[in-house]
């Protein structure tokens, strides 16, 4: 049965330490100055009502991925588990998908001259029943990952309990990465 993966990013637990980003670089040999994953931290509000806002920038593994529908060679494709991957052999690096992605998730790897992005560490970890590198590294357990079809799993339980935000939901891309927004809020 196909999986229904979801990655949850809990803003309440994130401390902006960037351990996930570093783990991703190491796991996937991401070249210098390029990123499959960044966590942007911003101070919001007016003193003394300050607060941090966190934003995860990575591939959202869209259910309706515009990067796949524009790719002229099917190099960007969706697997039967619904994950979006890139076939390095048939990618001609036309960069059409990079422009199509509303989340700026893709970049050209200058060493290999092909387009890359977060893969949920599918090849090296998830397909071997391991968690993505970022998830297993996060010191505060702000990240959780799993199959939504598996009732009672952490992701499934958290998804039931919390209010979820799907980035740029109005675009209809149906991301598989969801945010649990900060409950504290910031007075602006």
């Amino acid at each position: 049965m196909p999986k229904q993966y979801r990655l949850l990013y809990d803003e309440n637990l994130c401390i902006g330490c960037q351990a996930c980003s570093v783990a991703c670089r190491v796991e996937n040999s991401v070249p210098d100055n390029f990123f499959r994953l960044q966590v942007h931290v911003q101070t919001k509000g007016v003193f003394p009502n300050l607060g941090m806002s966190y934003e995860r920038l990575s591939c959202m593994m869209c259910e309706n991925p515009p990067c796949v529908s524009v790719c002229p060679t099917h190099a960007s494709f969706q697997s039967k588990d619904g994950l979006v991957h890139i076939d390095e052999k048939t990618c001609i690096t036309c960069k059409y998908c990079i422009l199509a992605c509303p989340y700026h998730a893709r970049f050209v790897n200058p060493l290999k001259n092909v387009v890359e992005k977060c893969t949920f560490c599918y090849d090296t970890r998830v397909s071997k029943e391991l968690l993505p590198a970022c998830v297993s590294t996060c010191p505060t357990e702000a990240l959780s990952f799993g199959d939504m079809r598996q009732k009672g799993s952490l992701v499934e339980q958290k998804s039931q309990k919390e209010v979820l935000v799907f980035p740029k939901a109005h675009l209809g891309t149906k991301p598989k990465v969801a945010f649990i927004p900060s409950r504290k809020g910031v007075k602006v």
Partner: protein
Amino acid sequence: MSPMWGSVEQYSTIHWSWAIAIYLFLAGLSSGSIIVALLVKWNRHERSNSSIWDAMIKAGAVVAPTAIFLGLFLLVIDLGRPFSFYWLLVRYNITSVMSLGVLFLLIYTPIVVVFMLLVFERNVIKHPILAPLEGLINLVKSFHSYAKIIEYFLFVAALCVGSYTGFLLSALYAIPLWNSPLLPVLFLTSSLSSGVAVNILIGLLFFKSTINTESIKYLLVLDTRVILTELPLLALFFIGMFYAGGDAPQAARMALTEGFWAGIFWLGVIGVGLGLPLLTVIVALRSHVYRVGYIIINSMVVILGVLMLRYYIIYAGQIYLG
């Protein structure tokens, strides 16, 4: 101070740059000039004897294949992996406008070459190097009775090539300045404009002996109409963005007011590309001073304006995301 998450350069890179802007321009120029040549042939060319082709038709027959080949060359070298381009020809994704474009170009380019061979039949036969092409010409001529159908086919293919580049950009809803249904129409009209200008320019410079002033007047009137269509189209294009949701209004505001590219828009696209030609028409041409100098400069100005429109759309689109 650098942000703690590292370089953010990849979030603001210009992925499609000058090569794509020029390709969009050349594809438009090619399709525009062949459309204009066909229009002249159908509406202005009384004698169907192919030995006395009108200079406008000759110009189209030279410009259209040259421009499209140059454009395709740029398009391929701009790929990160130019030598893998054959995948475009092997695998097609019908939901991708790029794949559709490849199909249109595969139909369009050979017909345009054949059209050129027919127009310059005599020159081709004269040259010993080109002699092997004679067989091809004779083959094509044996279909002479279908000429009109083939011309209609070429016309439609040119319309597809002239407008698909607009769809190529408008399909991307991540980029507010591109994601407009008016973009293909805008590109097509400005292609026609550049087609008129380039045919007049090349015709006047290289095929003077076969110039037909009637067809030049016809084209200048056509161009004035096209420019007068383009101005309201551009207005609608931005008005549409201001009423659209999401990041579009903000992107439109920035694209019209901020920095270098706003300058290119007002001075280059509106001022030089549309305003100046209109002024020329009103001042010089209305009083029937069809002076060659004026017409040549006017043509160059129109072409420059169309080129700047492509540059503006390509760059401003990627910079002003709202």
